[in-house]
């Protein structure tokens, strides 16, 4: 059955659905407090673990949900857009993004929510993103070879390690629960920061 676009629904719905999903996304993010940069970086300093909780819960919920739907034939999981595993570019990009995260206190998605509620640091962060993209694009010829290197293709983790995707999800769920528990213990010990 799914993904509904492009086979069941026409392509024109794509943008409408984008807006609707975006509204829901922004609403949930903002209501969970992700428009606050101090809340977001809390996970790296140990005083607020909302990011870990929301992130992991969302990933686990969505994975289990999609796997069930795939089993019932409602969606074809292999037809979904994954991220091609260009190992070294992703690692390098991730490290740079990590540094950006702790300096700026936002990630692009949460920065948009911050803009939505009027936080000027969010506006500036978005301006910074534009700047970063522009600098990269101009410097692209230097990185072009590296950018396309070490591409393992659109492979999933269970495929790569040759295990069943369902047991992998069991493993991730267990890791998530353990992480939540550990984080709860840590939060009790670290002095909380008022923000």
């Amino acid at each position, binding site marked *: 059955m799914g993904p509904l676009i492009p086979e069941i629904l026409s392509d024109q719905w794509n943008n409408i659905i984008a807006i609707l999903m975006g509204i829901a996304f922004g609403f949930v993010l903002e209501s969970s407090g992700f428009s606050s940069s101090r809340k977001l970086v809390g996970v790296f300093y140990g005083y607020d673990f909302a990011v870990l909780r929301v992130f992991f819960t969302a990933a686990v919920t969505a994975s*289990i949900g999609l796997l069930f739907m795939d089993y019932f*034939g409602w969606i074809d*999981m*292999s037809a979904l857009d994954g991220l091609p595993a260009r190992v070294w570019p992703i690692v390098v990009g991730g490290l740079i993004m990590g540094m950006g995260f702790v300096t700026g206190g936002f990630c692009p998605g949460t920065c948009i929510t911050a803009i939505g509620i009027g936080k000027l640091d969010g506006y500036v962060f978005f301006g910074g993103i534009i700047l970063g993209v522009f600098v990269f694009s101009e410097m692209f010829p230097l990185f072009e070879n590296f950018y396309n290197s070490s591409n393992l293709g659109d492979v999933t983790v269970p495929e790569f390690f040759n295990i*069943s995707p*369902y047991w992998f*999800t069991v493993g991730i*769920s267990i890791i998530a629960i353990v992480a939540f528990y550990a984080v709860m213990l840590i939060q009790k010990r670290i002095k909380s920061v008022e923000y």
Partner: protein
Amino acid sequence: MKKRYIFLAIVPIVLSIVLAFLPDKSNSIDAKRNQKSLKSAKYTGVTPNNLLLESVNDNRFIQPDELAKVIIGQDPSYLLVDLRDSVQYGKFTLPGAINIPYETILTEENQAVFDSEAYNVVLFSNGTIVPDQVWMILRRAGIKNLKVLNGGLNQFYQLYLNPPKPLEADPKEAFEIYSFRKAVGAHLGLPNPDEFIPKGGENVQNNAIATGLKPVVKPAAKAAPKVVVPKKAEGGDEGC
């Protein structure tokens, strides 16, 4: 720690364990992943350009007479692969042929057949179209030493069931080929129309229908419904 959280924490773990034990995952991502990994594992690949060049060249085709020599000589370096479904394979096939229905040609166990390059593989089916398609697919995947039986079983049996009698004026080779073909027919256990069946060739055609072979020539009344049957049911290969 609140009881509610403990309960909620168990939910995803239980759900994913349930997922792992669900039966019949043939349609799911796991099954598709296995097929996908097969494709990428074996993909030493022939590029489309090279494949085009190869396909224009006819030397992948093996003629019925050549194949007959291989069968009679019991040449061990040849592997005959019957691409039809198991029902047709069970009714009649070439001596020593193995059965790989063409839809399953890319599964791991069937691919293992092609692993050693020691064999010359001859792909055949009722006609030439299916084996040629399979040739394309396997060639694309980089499998070597493939041949396609020209004319398929239809032409093969035409030739050996009822070899065309040479005319008086034909050269000696024609007669030699004729006797060779009759010998092949006898070797394969095909009834010789002249000796065993009073009405000769015509009835043999009808018998061929009864054994599940699809004659290329005008089908008798019995065969008419089968011509209409869609491809999957009868393996009806329109013999090129």
